């Protein structure tokens, strides 16, 4: 990297290394480092946005509408997926419980039939023993199928655990993404503001620069999405400044 520096820049770097020139105003060394680091930050911010866009393109239309209108954060979209899978799991379990009840009703009908009693259109009828004996193979087959269906329902309930297991993992990912997004956002904002303010006012002091950063950060976090995060324009502007 030193090979790319002009004589003046080399002198400045040397001064900084020797502790002769610690001011921010004319310090090319810090500027070069800032450019290097800002490239990485830009890549990280882009990654975070690509992740959000990717999520939006992969979830269904309803979820996508909810996500783009109400929950622009990637973390909130993950929570939306959790919510959707929980609703779906509950609906499936409602159906399974209905099936269980239906099977139980059919089992009662079969048991009654075996005892020679059957209700047809609300009227009780008796069945002769010979008819029952003739139909016994069919009855046993029906009973066997009912038991098998109960086993399938029971297994389906167990499989519903996926919602809990994947949900726990998604929750952990959400925690990590929240932390990463917050850190990346803060870094991007600080660097973006610093570089822009330095360009506007090359003579600005380090202390004043910090004050501007704090003020602008407050301004940026205020107006978007009912106080939740930065909107796309603000981030695009920051990215353009990096």
């Amino acid at each position, binding site marked *: 990297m030193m090979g790319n520096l002009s004589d003046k820049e080399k002198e400045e770097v040397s001064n900084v290394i020797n502790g002769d020139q610690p001011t921010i105003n004319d310090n090319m060394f810090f500027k070069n480092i800032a450019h290097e680091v800002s490239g990485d930050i830009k890549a990280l911010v882009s990654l975070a946005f690509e992740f959000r866009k990717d999520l939006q393109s992969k979830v269904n239309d309803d979820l996508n509408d909810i996500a783009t209108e109400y929950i622009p954060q990637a973390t909130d979209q993950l929570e939306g997926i959790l919510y959707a899978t*929980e609703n779906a*799991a*509950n609906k499936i*379990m409602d159906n399974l*419980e209905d099936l269980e009840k239906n099977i139980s009703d059919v089992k009662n009908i079969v048991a009654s039939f075996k005892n020679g009693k059957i209700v047809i259109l609300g009227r009780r009828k008796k069945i002769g023993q010979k008819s029952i004996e003739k139909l016994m193979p069919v009855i046993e087959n029906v009973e066997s199928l009912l038991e098998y269906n109960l086993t399938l329902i*029971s*297994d389906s*309930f*167990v*499989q*519903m*655990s*996926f*919602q*809990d*297991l994947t*949900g*726990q993992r998604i929750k952990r990912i959400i925690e990590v993404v929240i932390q990463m997004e917050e850190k990346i956002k803060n870094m991007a904002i600080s660097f973006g503001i610093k570089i822009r303010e330095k360009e506007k006012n090359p003579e600005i002091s380090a202390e004043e620069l910090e004050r501007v950063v704090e003020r602008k950060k407050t301004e940026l976090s205020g107006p978007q999405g009912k106080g939740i995060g930065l909107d796309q324009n603000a981030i695009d502007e920051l990215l353009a400044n990096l």
Partner: protein
Amino acid sequence: MDVNMKVLIVDDFATMRRIVKNILRQLGFTNIIEADDGKAALYILKNEKIDLILSDWNMPEMPGIELLKAVRSDDELKDTPFLMVTAEAEKENIIEAVKLGVSNYIVKPFTAETMGEKLEKMFGK
């Protein structure tokens, strides 16, 4: 094993509580109540006689392991059978739970058969 015993299911996921409840019903249990975290469970335990606790490990307010500690350190609750039902299958977690006095440990997902075996070990047939 007395299927009339009162069972408390503790899990922050409503879906999982429902699954466990269904499995218990398949085993013949009908007296089942629920709590969505350790704190809510402790409140129930202080106010009702519970014969068996089935608790998840990972819960936001009060994790299952903290609930276990609280139960085992309470003179009135310390003998309540406590079955940890969790996705945490790490050896360290199991050892920690055993040291704290867990009655048994069951890893999700599990079948009614597995649950039945665990309960039989705890209560006998």
